[in-house]
């Protein structure tokens, strides 16, 4: 009896979360965010495919042309576009119900604000997964086009490509928690977006310093650079240094989410 109540309870919380996520997805249905996620993924592979012949001039660092094509293409995504898309999605999720005070109505419902905040964060991760998927799909389109143009097989196996993309995706999560916390804490949306964008720009420099594990914005780029280091000689370290990174990443994620969930909706209900 007790067990059934407990299982019913846990089922209720689980469905509660899922239905909250579903509601969030309905809210952003007409936001056109789909295009914001799709367009960069398409646009970035077009110049890569058209200039695919530069991949044959990499003999001095000993990288195969197909690996160079994959890494150079993903580089633009990992260092700028994916973090930037993340920032745009935080603005979307935070702003979508502000017109006509929809957010206040949401807060007046008997829904736990912390859970609401977590649901929005999970939708954020879902949107990023969608963009990652687009990037992989259009990588294959770009690689096929390049193969056709240069008469050389640029296409890499799916497990390798998906593995690389998955590593980048997992590396986004601490940054996502941090950006989500800033978006919740700072009331002016442009302010939080501006701070986040400004923090993304120097990540290329930070990844080359010893302080990189303490700067979550460079994790996705770091993941790609170690992959580069494995394929090419003397470019970057070949192994991922997990040690200072994992605890820092975990702490940033947990703390960011905790602060966001506690502070969510507080400014509006004051």
């Amino acid at each position, binding site marked *: 009896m007790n067990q059934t109540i407990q299982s019913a309870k846990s089922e209720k919380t689980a469905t509660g979360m899922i239905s909250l996520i579903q509601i969030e997805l309905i809210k952003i249905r007409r*936001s*056109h*965010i789909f295009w*914001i996620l799709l*367009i*960069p993924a398409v*646009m*970035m592979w077009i*110049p890569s495919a058209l200039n695919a012949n530069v991949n044959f001039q990499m003999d001095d660092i000993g990288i195969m042309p197909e690996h160079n094509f994959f890494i150079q293409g993903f580089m*633009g995504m990992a260092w*700028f*576009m994916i973090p*930037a*898309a993340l*920032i*745009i*999605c935080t*603005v*979307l999720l935070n*702003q*979508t119900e*502000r*017109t006509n005070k929809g957010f206040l109505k949401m807060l007046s419902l008997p829904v736990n604000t912390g859970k609401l905040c977590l649901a929005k964060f999970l939708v954020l991760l879902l949107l990023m997964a969608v963009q990652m998927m687009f990037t992989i799909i259009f990588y294959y389109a770009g690689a096929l086009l390049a193969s056709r143009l240069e008469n050389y097989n640029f296409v890499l196996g799916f497990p390798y490509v998906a593995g690389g993309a998955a590593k980048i995706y997992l590396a986004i999560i601490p940054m996502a928690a941090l950006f989500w916390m800033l978006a919740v804490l700072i009331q*002016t*949306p*442009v*302010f939080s*977006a*501006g701070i986040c*964008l*400004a923090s993304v*720009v*120097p990540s290329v*420099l930070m990844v080359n310093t010893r302080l990189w594990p303490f700067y979550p914005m460079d994790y996705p780029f770091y993941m790609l650079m170690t992959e580069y280091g494995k394929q090419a000689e003397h470019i970057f370290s070949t192994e991922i240094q997990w040690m200072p990174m994992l605890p820092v990443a975990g702490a940033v994620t947990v703390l960011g989410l905790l602060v966001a969930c506690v502070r969510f909706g507080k400014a509006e209900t004051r």
Partner: protein
Amino acid sequence: MIFALELKKLRRTGFIPIFLGGGLTAAAVPLINTAVRTETFSGLPEEPFPILMDANWGLMAQLTILLVVCGCCLIYHTEYADRGALKMNTLPVCQTSLFFGKFSVTLLLTLLALSLQTASLIFSGIHWFPDKSLNLWEMIQDMGFEIIMLLPTLTLMLFTASLFQSMWLSLGTGVILTFLGSMIQEDHLILSLIPFAAPYRMLHAVSPADISSCILACIIQTFLFGIMEIIYLHTRRIFT
């Protein structure tokens, strides 16, 4: 009058702090970079300013472009957020002058951000290259050139911001254009002068024969985007 009105509207929106903060962030780039790697730069044979610009301008330009993107989004978001734009439409104010009022305010504050960066470059030149003579006039010319290179980006971004009521769309478009602009190489002269790519050009890196055509191209583009906005304002009811 509209200029004063626009400034007044922006008083509590954080518009001026965002430009001050963005300008200071970009100004910190040459200071940190030169302080950390003084030996690398002081050994180079060139003049101080070309060295500093080559080492830092890429990052500074990107920060400035993002600053302009954020500023343009904010200046129109304040109108759209609580349907202020609708109220503005009912007032006896010309819609076009509203756009150009916003344009002048944004341009003024971009000038402020760029002068902060110029000051920081001059300071780095004086402080870390003491035994080289500084050509201040060249530096000021270089920054004036950057302002002109930024004009099309600013106008196009303001036009985009006026198009979309939801901020994530204007911000998203701006960020995607920033991303695409940063990928364009400078070896195609015409391609490198489009908005979001032009601000990466530097006066000392452009060959003297091309300077006037660069400036002309940017001014023509600015007028073009201004005319696009006027056409949009007059044909708006067809789209919505």
